[in-house]
């Protein structure tokens, strides 16, 4: 392909655009370092609002995601929170899930066209995030009220008791479970990653409520999954020449600072805070996608909406995505600040 045409895909960056990407990268990194995922979903629409073509935005976002996940997982591994074996098993099944997800997407695209595909993505977003986010939030509030240590979910305990060959043991996560229960969690993570690009919204709750890992281990292990899947996806996009390395490196500048702060934050706060942040973000993002649905329903002729309303709803939808990330960051930093003061006092008294 002509190199001049290749370069035309890439936009000219101004200081405001650079600043925007750096800040969103930092906040996204902070959230990812803390809950394992979910920090990157604002970046793709954010880059597109700067004029970056959709595929380049997705490719450049993914190319920043895997090194961020690598740095975050190394940091959290040092705190004893990462189960590499569990992460690799999950990533292997998630890889298969991604392929299945792409097949479903293509099938829907051929049946109902782009608007149908977009509606399917938005419906999946809302359904999965409301159900899973609701469960995570309810559990987090229960844990916050009881003030006790995190208990393994009863469903996970029951599944762990079923001796269905082959059984797999995970030392760091301190659990032993049949591969037949791990497989659907991994597949669902990949399926969601291919559909809404944030597999962790199912992967982390799946590891907590189905496999029986703690939220600390689940969120840290999700970073391993994000690294493996992100690397494979980035190589794929780079082979097609879609990565704008400048965008990737600017986001990385902010996100490497954020992801390590988020990882440090997990050692400060009580474990249910991970669930609180995750549940809050998921429910606000679900609301955001709800605002995007009338547009696709109108395109399919199922609803009548004026262009001005669609434009307004698009803006509201994006604003809620940004708000979800900001609320998550505020909760993380606030809880870190609150937890840091008594810890610092205790250290001073001990010295």
């Amino acid at each position: 392909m002509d190199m001049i045409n290749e370069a035309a895909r890439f936009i000219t960056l101004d200081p405001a655009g650079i600043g925007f990407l750096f800040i969103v990268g930092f906040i996204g990194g902070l959230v990812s370092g803390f809950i394992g995922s979910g920090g990157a979903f604002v970046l793709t629409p954010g880059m597109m609002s700067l004029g970056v073509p959709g595929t380049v935005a997705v490719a450049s976002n993914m190319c920043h995601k895997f090194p961020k996940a690598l740095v975050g997982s190394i940091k959290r591994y040092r705190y004893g929170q990462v189960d590499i074996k569990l992460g690799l098993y999950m990533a292997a099944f998630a890889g298969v899930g991604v392929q299945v997800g792409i097949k479903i997407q293509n099938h829907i695209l051929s049946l109902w066209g782009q608007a149908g595909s977009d509606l399917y993505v938005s419906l999946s977003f809302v359904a999965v995030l409301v159900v899973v986010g609701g469960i995570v939030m309810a559990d987090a509030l229960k844990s916050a009220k009881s003030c006790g240590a995190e208990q393994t979910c009863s469903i996970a305990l029951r599944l762990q008791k079923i001796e269905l060959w082959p059984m797999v043991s995970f030392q760091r996560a301190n659990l032993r479970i049949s591969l037949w229960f791990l497989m659907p969690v991994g597949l669902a993570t990949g399926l969601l990653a291919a559909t809404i690009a944030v597999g962790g919204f199912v992967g982390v709750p799946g590891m907590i409520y189905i496999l029986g890992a703690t939220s600390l281990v689940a969120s840290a292990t999700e970073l391993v999954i994000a690294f493996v899947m992100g690397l494979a996806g980035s190589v794929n996009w780079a082979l097609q020449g879609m990565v704008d390395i400048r965008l990737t490196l600017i986001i990385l500048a902010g996100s490497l600072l954020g992801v390590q702060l988020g990882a440090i934050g997990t050692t400060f706060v009580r474990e249910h805070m991970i669930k609180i942040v995750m549940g809050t973000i998921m429910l606000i993002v679900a609301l955001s996608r709800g605002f995007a649905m009338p547009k696709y329903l109108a395109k399919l002729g199922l609803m009548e909406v004026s262009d001005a309303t669609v434009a307004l709803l698009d803006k509201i939808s994006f604003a809620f995505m940004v708000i979800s990330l900001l609320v998550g960051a505020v909760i993380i930093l606030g809880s870190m600040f609150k937890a840091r003061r008594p810890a610092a006092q205790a250290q001073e008294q001990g010295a």
Partner: protein
Amino acid sequence: MQARKKKPVGKLLAYGLGSVGLYTAVYLLQDLMMANFARGGVYTVLPIATVFLFSWVHGTFAGTLWEVLGIDAVKKAPAQTAAQAPARKDTRPRAAVSA
């Protein structure tokens, strides 16, 4: 009295300079990079290797910066589940050989 941990200011400066150097190089060589990094095929190695290099240099700088600012992990407790289901005993009858 317990001695306070020495802050790695030298490491921060070294990796900070490295990070500034790398970002300056990207700024100065952006045209060359844009022309070659998005060619696909064997050129795929260029963006992938670049992000690994930046994660090492800028990632170490970022980690050291929080450490120097006094923001560090407060506990390194092993994160494990509170309870785990015991392995079920195999109660199936076994074939026994009596000689």
